[in-house]
């Protein structure tokens, strides 16, 4: 078992990130996509904190991750509001149907 150094954290963060991306790419449910976003943000957060711990980034990394957490919360709120409005207007939550901007 290798020691839990920076690479190990980056590995975990990478998994989270990729899972979030794949989640965004595969879920047709708007809320599912939103969850993928959260995963991605989470992976990034983990990176920041890991860098804060292992590199001269120091406290800055933690501060940024705090901001990310807060912004993610705000984003989630907005996204949910949009999702709900979408749902209200289209009576569906399938984002594949949300293609009015195409033309």
């Amino acid at each position, binding site marked *: 078992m290798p020691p839990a150094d920076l690479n190990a954290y980056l590995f975990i963060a990478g998994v989270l990130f990729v899972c979030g991306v794949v989640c*965004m*790419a595969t879920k047709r449910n708007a809320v599912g*996509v939103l969850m993928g976003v959260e995963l991605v943000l989470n992976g990034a957060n983990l990176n920041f904190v890991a860098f804060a711990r292992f590199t001269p980034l120091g406290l800055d990394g933690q501060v940024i991750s705090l901001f990310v957490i807060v912004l993610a919360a705000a984003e989630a709120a907005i996204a949910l509001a949009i999702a709900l409005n979408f749902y209200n207007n289209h009576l569906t939550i399938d*984002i*594949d149907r949300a293609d009015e901007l*195409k033309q």
Partner: protein
Amino acid sequence: MPSDATQLGQTLSTLLTIAWLLPLAGFAIEIFGGFWGTRQSKAAAYIAVACIGTAFLCSVGALLYWGDQTDWAALQPHHGSGHGEAGQAEGDARAAAEHAAAHPSHAGEEVDVADHAQPVSGAGIPAGAWEHNLANAPEHAAPKSFSGTFYVLAGFGSLRVAIDWYIDSLTLVMFTMVTLVASLIHLFAIGYMSDELTDDHEDHQVQTAHGHLHRPGRFSRFFAFLSLFSFSMLGLVLAGNVFMVFVFWELVGVCSYFLIGFYVERKSASNAANKAFIMNRVGDFGFLIGLMILWTYFGTFQFANRVEDGVVMPGLFDMLRDGDGNMHLSDSGATVLLDDGSDAAAGIHEAPTIPYFLLVAAGLGIFAGCVGKSAQFPLQTWLPDAMEGPTPVSALVHSATMVAAGVYLTGRFYPMFTPEVLLTIAYIGCITLFLAATIAVVATDIKRVLAYSTISQLGYMMLGLGVGGWGAGLFHLITHAFFKSLMFLASGSVIYGCHHVQEMPRMGGLWRKMPITAFTMLVGVIAIAGLAIPGISIFGEKIAFSGYHSKDAIVATAMTFADLNRTHFLLFYAPLIGAGITSFYMFRLWFLTFAGKPRDQHVYDHAHESPRVMTVPLIVLSMFAAFVAVGGEEGKLFLLLTNSEPAGVANGLVASSPSNLALPSHEAVHARHALAGTFALVVAALGALVACVFYGLRLVNPAEVQRQFASLHTFLIEKWWFDELYDMMFVRPVHVVAKWCSACDKYVFDGILHGLAKGTVLVAHWDRMFDEQIVDGLVNWVGRVTYGTGSLLRLLQTGRLRQYVMFIVVGVVGIWVIVQIFAS
């Protein structure tokens, strides 16, 4: 005395200049006659006759004055007679003795003649003893020739081209002959051309869309051209340098052109005029080459010496030959040493030289001009065609004077000719006389017979000159001028009387209608045939007309020449046979025209004798034709002429390198004279007899002979096919080359040019295409590609959120892969 000589020269030159310029003044007035006077006015003719008549008087005056001043030394064969003067009677022992006495004195050096007065500086050889050393000559003796300058045309450094005059006895005789013949012909022409005295002349030979051509008469124009011709001819005779000869040479040519083409409406006339001029130009081309050679090597054109600032500038003759008429060759014999008057021995500069072959070339070149002008083989074809002109023109220009100018120049330029050139001249003359005589036998147009006879007689003259008979050739020139102009005028009278019928087969028996014409013509015929009554020719004067004497002299010289140079025997036989033929065709002409029965009753009925203005000149000329050469080679005319004979001619030439030709001396000729004269007379009499048998007595039908020799007849009728030959050899090739040149311009040069232009346009097109296709195309392509990419990318704009995510990811991966590829 020099002052006397000066004065003599000035007087002579003044008289001859007046005689020369008067016709020019006449021309200037007459040319506008058609505008100033009416068409009926004969004023132009009177002016012309007055001018030329005065000129004649001036010439005679000059001749007489000259004779008077020189005490007629030239006419006294016993006075200082050189052996060259062939005037002695046969077996004249005194002459032989004098010859023996004179001979040792020949070896004189060339004499500076500078002390002869300026501007008159003659060759300075006293009359009668001209071949003697000048230093021994009596101081008061008049010089043999006079020369001077009218004005300078141009000078370049030491080179100088001027209008000069040169007067010797030849000039004087020529002047008198030309002005006399011209005066008579002018008179004759008043009658002959009288049908031009109208506002509405009908030319029957020209057919237009509206019938025969009607035009205003051109009486004064005719006389204007005659006057201009007289001026040019006299200028040619008076010329003091060969350049000036060339100038007037061309001027008589152009006068001839105008006169031949007098009936401008006739195509044949204008063709003949063109032919005459162009053929003459061919000869002049040779003349020009000769001029160039002389100019380059001699640096002067003058015949006589010239004194400038006390320095003698030798003329052509004195540069080439010394006082005895000898050339000085270099040791190798390849070059000829020239005497430019400066003292070469003093070592100031080397004497100029000329390569011998170039001297020959120069002589041939000058002679080529003479060939053209005198209608010698191979340029003889223009003269018969020149008969398109009015008959007085034929008489004056194309028999008596202009065509004789070639002979005159050959005589004048005699010292410049090397033996080779003389041989060429002789052969050309020989060929010409035979060729023309044969054609004359079959010709039926009365004027054409005379034309061919003219060519033939000119051939005689050339032959005479070429075989060393300087005096003989020029003698024949003078006598021929009289009898040939007589015959032409007589034929003109016939034509006038027969209303412009020229074909002899339509004539016959005319002597009853026009006795004066017939009689005078007979005089001419006998003269040209060279008939004489042998029996009474033992002492003193022979009973013979002029032609006998002159032809006799030529035949004698030719015979002697053939004796000396055995290989050139033809030069004797040809003129001998030619004499027979001449006699034959001339009598044929007379019989056909005047004797027998009328063959065309219509012509005969309307024929009439010409008015007195035409018959008087005939009678006068017949007198001259008969008696001008009285005394033959002891006669005054011959003596006058030979007074100007170049030094050395009389001695003949012993065959030596480089030419290896011998020329007969006068003595040798004289020895042969009686024999040759007998031969010639027998042959001529034979010819006359045959003609009499054929045409006079009608014992043989000429038509049968003609049929028997049909191919020969055709050959002769077609004039030996020369016209066709020249047409094929020269005229057509020239036109073809001309077409080539023109086409070359059109297709090659312009083609290249147009090619370049098209190339430029093409490049411009390419440029435009480059602009439109490449530059604009690139911009458009960018736009189009952008647009196309946009359209393509729009397809990616699916509006599907999840695909966008995929794109981002794929994009990131793609970028990373690319970066990795290029980073590694």
